[in-house]
């Protein structure tokens, strides 16, 4: 079975990661790759790692033809306005922007500050985090991509939340510069960014809305800091549990949640340099490493999750979700194990 996939707005980092992943997917042929600004240029001008690997030119989005799957990598706010057109072109649509992540148009307005452009489409959307929504993804025709910080927080906390064990949680989230996208900004300028640890969102990050939608109305806030790293997210969540938990309890909870997950690994060792999750070893990988520790004095549980923001936090989860929706092996195209040292 070979399906055709086209990528809309493919000049950004998530578009580049989709190209890299789909280029080695055994069941997908990349049909067209659009970028209005780069139309007619070879893709390696924008994604130099693909030079000699993929012989494709960017096309204008108006020239995209019908295909099996459309991946939309447009900036937040652009996808929803055109969604009906793209749904008429692709039998399935996977949108990697934030436009369809929140099911409720009122919640979207509260967090993104404007009316949703296609509220009627929200009923069809399945949130593309397979670890929580695999069954719904199996016949989805409109899939929302995930927020990278939301993914790290959700996977760190899911085993506790689904058992009602969170009284209150504060997540400390450290992120790499590629989260800010391919367009430069004052905060991403090298002299500002290099060697800094810059807390850009001390509370109320937008991705909390996704976490609450996925985990239920838990009492959660997050502080997000940009650190001197290109790829990666590390969520360190400080949990006040509803009851005392031991290390053994945590192993049981996390095993029950993730034992059968192809891309979630439990990393919670007592010793060694890599005893808890570290995003550096996940560069290019679709794995999420989750870990935990408990302060037996205070009872506080520390729940962690590391991911590559561009892979498990964006393009990798999108392909994993597509694999489920299209009946492929869930691992197809996604078995790159990461780099060490990176």
């Amino acid at each position: 079975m070979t399906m055709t996939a086209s990528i809309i707005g493919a000049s950004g980092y998530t578009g580049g990661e989709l190209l890299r992943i789909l280029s080695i997917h055994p069941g997908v042929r990349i049909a067209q790759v659009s970028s209005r600004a780069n139309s007619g240029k070879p893709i390696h001008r924008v994604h130099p790692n693909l030079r000699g690997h993929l012989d494709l030119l960017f096309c204008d989005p108006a020239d995209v033809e019908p295909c099996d799957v459309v991946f939309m990598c447009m900036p937040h706010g652009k996808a929803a306005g055109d969604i009906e057109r793209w749904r008429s072109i692709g039998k399935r649509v996977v949108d990697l922007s934030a436009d369809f992540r929140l099911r409720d148009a009122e919640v979207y307005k509260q967090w993104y500050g404007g009316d949703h452009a296609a509220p009627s489409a929200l009923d069809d959307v399945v949130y593309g985090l397979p670890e929580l929504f695999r069954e719904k993804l199996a016949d989805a025709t409109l899939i929302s991509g995930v927020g990278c910080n939301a993914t790290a927080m959700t996977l760190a906390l899911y085993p506790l939340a689904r058992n009602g064990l969170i009284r209150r949680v504060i997540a400390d989230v450290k992120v790499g510069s590629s989260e800010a996208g391919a367009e430069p900004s004052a905060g991403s300028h090298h002299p500002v960014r290099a060697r800094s640890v810059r807390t850009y969102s001390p509370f109320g990050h937008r991705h909390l809305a996704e976490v609450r939608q996925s985990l239920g109305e838990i009492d959660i806030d997050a502080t997000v800091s940009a650190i001197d790293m290109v790829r990666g997210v590390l969520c360190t969540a400080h949990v006040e549990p509803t009851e005392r938990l031991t290390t053994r309890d945590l192993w049981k909870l996390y095993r029950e949640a993730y034992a059968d997950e192809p891309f979630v690994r439990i990393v919670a060792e007592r010793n060694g340099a890599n005893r808890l999750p570290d995003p550096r070893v996940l560069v290019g990988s679709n794995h999420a490493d989750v870990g935990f520790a408990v302060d037996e004095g205070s009872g506080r549980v520390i729940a962690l999750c590391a991911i590559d923001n561009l892979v498990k936090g964006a393009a990798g989860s999108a392909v994993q979700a597509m694999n489920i929706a299209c009946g492929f092996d869930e691992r197809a195209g996604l078995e790159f194990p990461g780099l060490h040292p990176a």
Partner: protein
Amino acid sequence: MQTTTETAACPECDSQITFDRSPLNGQVARCGDCGVELEVTNLNPLTLEIAPEVEEDWGE
């Protein structure tokens, strides 16, 4: 040498540790799940304890 299969629970994560040969008192084993180093401290019943290791401390 006597061949047998004996198991005991890891005191860290509760995973089952299997010994293909009869364990010896003081023998060191490693848990495949949580990676902790274990020491056999009793043979009857088979008992494992976490082996002591030097901890990392970067404080100044």
